[in-house]
């Protein structure tokens, strides 16, 4: 009874899957350039997220709600480049307009790497790269089976940053704008009728193989991910700084059951020089 017609497709997928770890490694490494150390900061942020999502694998309805946001980040600045490595986590609940509720958790690792060769950091648009790694999980307690859904993606794209210093009553403030759009990467989604990825619909020697065989390429057209982050920085005399900002992110993955997520986070953060 086995579907022998699928063997050809399977071997094609297998060949593609062998290249996938290489693609993953390249995308992950691009965000980690080496450069001379000058200023290092540790950043802790906390905030409140308002989000909206629609996962057609679960429902045609929009679910909206809120959650708590935490972030730990490492920021490194040298003469030519600056790097931000941020670990984010959000946990909350969302409801449809009929009151059905789901719980969600979302974790991400973001890397922003900017070049500023002319040493001038402010009043100039700096271009760079952003790498985004997102794992988002939703749990619908009303569903009997397959009541949790998720998406994972890693992607790469251009980013831009602008710093604009100004003064209010003699105090220095810096307005910072950051935007990114992700262009290429890979993603994993649940299969058409279950919670687990497609690679696990056949025997796999290991979980890793199952994941690799579930990977789909991320590119504009079948997936979108962009964001921006306006932030107001208040530098302290100690060299540390306090920031207040808003971080917006949108993604849509057009896998068999499309998922759309739109979230905005209001946050306050403390940068400590190390």
């Amino acid at each position, binding site marked *: *009874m*086995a*579907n022998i017609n*699928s063997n050809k497709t*399977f071997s094609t997928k297998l060949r593609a899957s062998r290249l996938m770890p290489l693609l993953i490694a390249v995308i992950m490494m691009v965000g980690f350039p080496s450069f001379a150390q000058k200023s290092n900061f540790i950043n802790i942020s906390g905030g409140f997220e*308002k*989000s*909206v*999502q*629609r996962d057609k694998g*679960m*429902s*045609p*309805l*929009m679910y*909206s709600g809120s959650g708590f946001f935490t972030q730990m980040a490492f920021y490194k600045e040298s003469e030519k480049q600056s790097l931000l490595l941020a670990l984010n986590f959000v946990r909350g609940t969302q409801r*449809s*307009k*009929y*009151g*059905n509720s789901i719980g969600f958790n979302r974790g991400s690792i973001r890397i922003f790497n900017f070049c500023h060769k002319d040493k001038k950091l402010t009043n100039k648009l700096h271009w760079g790269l952003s790498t985004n790694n997102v794992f988002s999980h939703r749990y*619908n307690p*009303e*569903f*009997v*089976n*397959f*009541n949790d859904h998720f998406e994972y993606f890693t992607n790469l794209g251009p980013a831009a940053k602008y710093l*604009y210093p*100004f*003064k*209010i*009553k003699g105090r220095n*403030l810096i*307005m910072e704008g950051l935007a990114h759009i992700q262009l290429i990467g890979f993603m994993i989604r649940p*299969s*058409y*009728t*279950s919670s687990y990825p*497609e690679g696990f*619909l*056949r*025997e796999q020697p290991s979980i890793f193989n199952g994941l690799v065989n579930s990977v789909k390429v991320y590119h504009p057209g079948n997936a979108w991910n962009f964001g*921006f982050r*306006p932030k*107001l920085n208040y530098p302290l005399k100690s060299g540390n700084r306090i920031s207040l900002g*808003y971080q*917006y992110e*949108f993604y849509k993955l057009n896998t*068999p059951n499309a998922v*759309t997520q*739109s*979230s*905005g986070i*209001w946050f306050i953060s403390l940068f400590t020089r190390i």
Partner: protein
Amino acid sequence: MKGIFNLFIFWLLVFFCSCEEDFVSPDPVSNPVSNFEYLWEDVQNRYSYFDLKSIDWETIRKDYRPLVKDNMSNQELFDLMADMLYQLKDGHVNLTSDFDRSRNWDWFLGHPSNFNGAIVERNYLGSNYRITGPLRNQVIDSVLYIYYSSFANTISTDHLEVLMERASTLKGIIIDVRNNGGGNLNNARLLASCFTDQKVAYARERRKTGPEANDFSDWQMLTFPAKKGRRFKGKVVVLSNRACYSATTFFAQMMKALPNVLLLGDQTGGGGGAPSSGELPNGWQYRLSVTQTVNLEGEHIEMGVPADIAIKMDQRDLVKGKDTLIEAALDILR
């Protein structure tokens, strides 16, 4: 002053940016027609047993769609869609609203029950039976009788270790899963793992992977492992009736794959397709079977797993307070 102006511009920009809902398309229109069409189409795309049950879903649409009216009440719409889903003859298909839950329970209501809980409780378990987790158990004539009412009730390896120790000096085990409507398949696998020394293949499963009729995954072997620790190598009899469904049908199929196990009673009610859920534009939820499961001979278990020894409850035994199936199992094991 310029600084304050800059600050004002900054927060104005942020304010206009923070409209998360504007980036996601609005909810689909919800009216009787749109909800009917959504349900019909999702069943068409995801339901896994049209061919096996010779159901022409297009014809069913032609029968029901003209009955959908814009001004019908929620109760009328619910009843209409429930009737349509009833045609799938599937215990794993339901429509759930705030006021009702549709179902098709013909898989057991149309057959003899072959079970009387009061007789089991009073005349076999008695007053001094043990309750090991969700497993009620009693030693009857050197045979360990175990009653498991629902696979939704979690069993642990500790529970099973106790039972395997209790059975170690006995002649056999009766596992009574009559009227067990299913639950968590992991509990079924764990219980079956007590009666084998090696990993056992018991069935094959395939899953809908797309909207086309033939969009199925490859068949994947279903197995259960051998339990670590104490196991039972003697004879085992599993008692079943038509009210055994879903995970209990899978359990019966697992036990059938073992050489030291007999399935006795009536065939199980079925439920070989794993259910998946969905939601309509009006917020009602539904579920439907999205997989197919066959035994090792390639026969579907959607309609049930037949007993090795088919025995029905004898009315004369009932009058005497006896359970025909338990008596037959004791005769085999004594």
